[in-house]
């Protein structure tokens, strides 16, 4: 009885619906294929095995929907807090959703949720979201709040002094404990003397 809902690629709630619809379609398709296989007098086990690709795909779509819905719900909870934080989290969630649509475009096309021209539109929107996120990228990883001692990474240091720490780290390599490694005297010297 309700009117059909239109997918709005800038609206999280609308995209959640699209993910839900995709999951629903893939579960339906896998179930129907399984049923059809059974009607050809195959055993349950054979029918299951012969549809396992569709079944894994349906599970994947279901999980993707649960993920995106939970993510989106969480962002709704942040809504009444800090506006700047809410804005950046919404941009991230939109990127997550549209990137998922782009990667699984076949499913969304098959389900009739998007058209081919719309996919081009999504691709453009994705590029726009990358630019929007660019100034906040470092702050977004800072917010994970991993101390240098936890990351133990010369490349990921908070102070950004990557090359200095890479050089310091390399100097501690056991191969640098002596200026000349013993293998030189054991193997290379005898070899050189023989040639």
């Amino acid at each position, binding site marked *: 009885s309700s009117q059909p809902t239109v997918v709005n690629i800038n609206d999280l709630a609308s995209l959640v619906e699209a993910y839900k619809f995709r999951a629903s379609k893939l579960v339906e398709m896998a179930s129907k294929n399984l049923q059809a296989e059974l009607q050809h007098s195959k055993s349950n086990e054979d029918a299951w095995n012969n549809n396992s690709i569709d079944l894994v795909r349906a599970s994947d779509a279901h999980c993707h929907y649960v*993920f995106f819905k939970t993510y989106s719900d969480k962002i709704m909870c942040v809504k009444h807090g800090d506006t700047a*934080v809410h804005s950046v989290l919404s941009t991230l*969630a939109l990127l997550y959703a549209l990137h998922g649509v782009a990667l699984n475009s076949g499913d969304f096309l098959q389900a009739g949720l998007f058209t081919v021209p719309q996919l081009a539109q999504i691709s453009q929107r994705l590029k726009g979201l990358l630019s929007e996120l660019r*100034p906040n990228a470092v702050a*977004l990883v*800072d917010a994970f709040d991993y101390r240098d001692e936890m990351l*133990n990474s010369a*490349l990921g240091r908070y102070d950004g002094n990557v090359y200095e720490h890479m050089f310091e780290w390399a100097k*501690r390599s056991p191969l640098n404990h002596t200026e000349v490694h013993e293998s030189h005297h054991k193997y290379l010297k005898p070899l050189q003397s023989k040639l």
Partner: protein
Amino acid sequence: MNPDISRERENASFNPEILTNILDGGAEKTRRRREIESLVIGDPDFQHEDLNFLSRSERYDAAVRKSAQMILKLREYGISDPEEIYSYKSIVKGVYQEPFGVHFVMFIPTLNSQCTAEQHKKWIPLAESFRMLGTYAQTELGHGTHIRGLETTATYDPSTQEFVLNSPTISSIKWWPGGLGKTSNHAIVLAQLYTQGKCHGLHAFITPIRCMKTHMPLPGVVVGDIGPKFGFDEVDNGYLKLENVRIPRENMLMKYAKVEPDGTYVKPPSDKLTYGTMVFIRSMIVGESARALSKSCTIAIRYSAVRHQSELRPGEPEPQILDYQAQQYKLFPLLATAYAFHFVGQYMSKTYHRISGYINQGDFSELPELHALSAGLKAFTTWVANAGIELCRMSCGGHGYSRCSSLPDIYVTFTPTCTYEGENTVMMLQTARYLVKSYKQARAGQQLTGTVSYLNEPQSRIQPLSV
């Protein structure tokens, strides 16, 4: 401070501290987490040479020393809240693993959830005082995720009221459990129970494997380390062959299924209860995926802000590689995914605790939903995170290949999550079984609850947006 990274922070449109508080669940939780982290970082007992420069044996030795110190310190500081213990442990471990890991995350939780009150009274103090060092021996050389196919047997002998444990074939030797090789003196062994001439399927048995005084293997027990792996160098993943090992009747975990002294078998209310520990770990892996991916993103994005390469416009200085759209396309969707994983990890943990609370009160109605959800989300997140960590590594060019980037260590430590506690494709098929069953119920007009409730909705309510 590198000027590029300083500038990045100055240009941000929001205060990261507020977001950190949201991720932690409140400002007070952030404060306490940091306080706990400082306890480890400022502690000279946890300082050691970079593990990358040590041999495997030295790494195991350093890890055992650190784990032992960690247990003493947790007691000394009176840290007992599970979340705080987790925080403390994760900073001690860094990106590596610890030999006592399975004792904490599987052995003690299994005892807690599957012991009778009497068994609880006997075993928990021993496990919590580390006189008992335990592991969880399920997987066998020839059998993994399909646990009904496990071959280890536990045959009840009513004349002595003992179970006789055996590894009847080469493929039945227990293989892979963390800490089994050298560290543990007890194992929860999953074995096919035989009593009164009938097999009753898989059950869990507390099995002593080494003498608690000398730490020597007990008679009939053949135990050792399985050798180097892709990662997990600090952990002694082990093998265990049981040759007519006798254990008392009380060593079977009997909260649900029971064997009476005369050998009569009492069924559990649900077969799935035997796999409760695995469901717990699968639920927690979702949060682990978030941590591994967010660490990798942190490394790759900070490095991309510092690294300059090539030229965007002829004659201009080399730009930060983060300015390249292709680099952004590699990293930003992963950053968004890391945030999604973080929130879903919290959701999964809450869902596990909510439903297991019902189970403890005897309500098993939501057990199939928990089983399917934890299996599917575990597989979904670990596949994505595993590929994501590798993409972060490749986003760091040649330097990502160096162990000093930490990305190789994060990758090899995370990779086994795709296979342990259930191989991912098998997990997805378990979820599919639940989805197909739910779909049939919805078509039959039954009202569904939980994450599958959408299968009740009509499918004609959505249409494409016109361009």
